[in-house]
């Protein structure tokens, strides 16, 4: 647990700097509101799809989120596998191949059904 003390110190420093900066900006900076400040940033994309009804999201975001989370979970399992790979040997390799293959089937299905296209 002592190995985390430097990370804790770094986190405290970062939090202190963030709070100090935001607080100083609030105390010393002038506050002049105008419409442009609330728009999307110059190079940011315009928030196009209007939320319908009570601020509902278009379902495209749900699909993107699901794709992202599923492959995120897949990748996360590669870490403990890679770390203990030499101890697991061929058995571990076959296991991981089966796992990746199943998720790859999902990937192929999503691709085939046009899930990777935005419109």
């Amino acid at each position: 647990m002592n190995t985390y003390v430097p990370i804790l110190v770094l986190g405290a420093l970062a939090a202190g700097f963030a709070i100090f900066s935001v607080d100083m900006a609030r105390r010393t900076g002038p506050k002049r509101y105008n419409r442009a400040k609330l728009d999307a940033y110059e190079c940011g994309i315009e928030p196009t799809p209007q939320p319908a009804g009570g601020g509902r999201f278009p379902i495209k975001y749900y699909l993107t989120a699901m794709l992202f989370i599923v492959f995120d979970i897949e990748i996360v399992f590669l870490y403990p596998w890679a770390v203990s790979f030499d101890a697991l040997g061929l058995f571990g390799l076959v296991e991981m191949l089966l796992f990746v293959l199943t998720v790859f089937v999902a990937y192929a299905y999503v691709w085939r059904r046009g899930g990777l296209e935005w419109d």
Partner: protein
Amino acid sequence: MTLAAGHPGFMSPTGVEIAFVLVGIATLGAALVTVTTKQLVHAALWLVVALGGFAVEYLLLTAEFIAWVQVLIYVGSVVVLLLFGLMLTKAPIGRSPDADSGNGWVALVVAVAAAATLVWVVVDAFRSTWVDLGGAAQGSAKVTGAILFRHWVLPFEALSVLLLAALVGAIVLSKRGAPARRSLLSKSEALPMRGVPSERKARES
């Protein structure tokens, strides 16, 4: 893990145990603010605090790997996706009066019942086992990998099927009634449309 006999007990808490309780209280507070605030972006940011608190709790219990998975997947992905969703959909800035669904009491009952079930299951399963919090991490990536890929092979492989089912379900829900794929025919039909202006130019000249 050792049995309870060699443990000093609850009356002389160690520094780690005190830290665990304090972080738990902060996490609970952040979670309460998350579900009660009317400002969506604030709710997402308080969710970061709550999920980060969970990561710290895992870390204090020497479950290193789970702690960083918590940070990567929950804080790093789920909340970022939420914030992107808010950013890209012109969600109203400031308070949204319709953020409360009016099911507060039902939600409270469900939450308390779920928490009671979880506490009961965990206490029942680990009745007299203690984790040595001072020693080497018992949940590091190496230890987790060795145990997961040796003793929990079937659940691990079943997980891949679960991920497959999740993606298929997402496609079925979101692409309801849509054609499987734009066929080559419709693309070739679209081609002459692009050629229209040049044809017109050719006729004029």
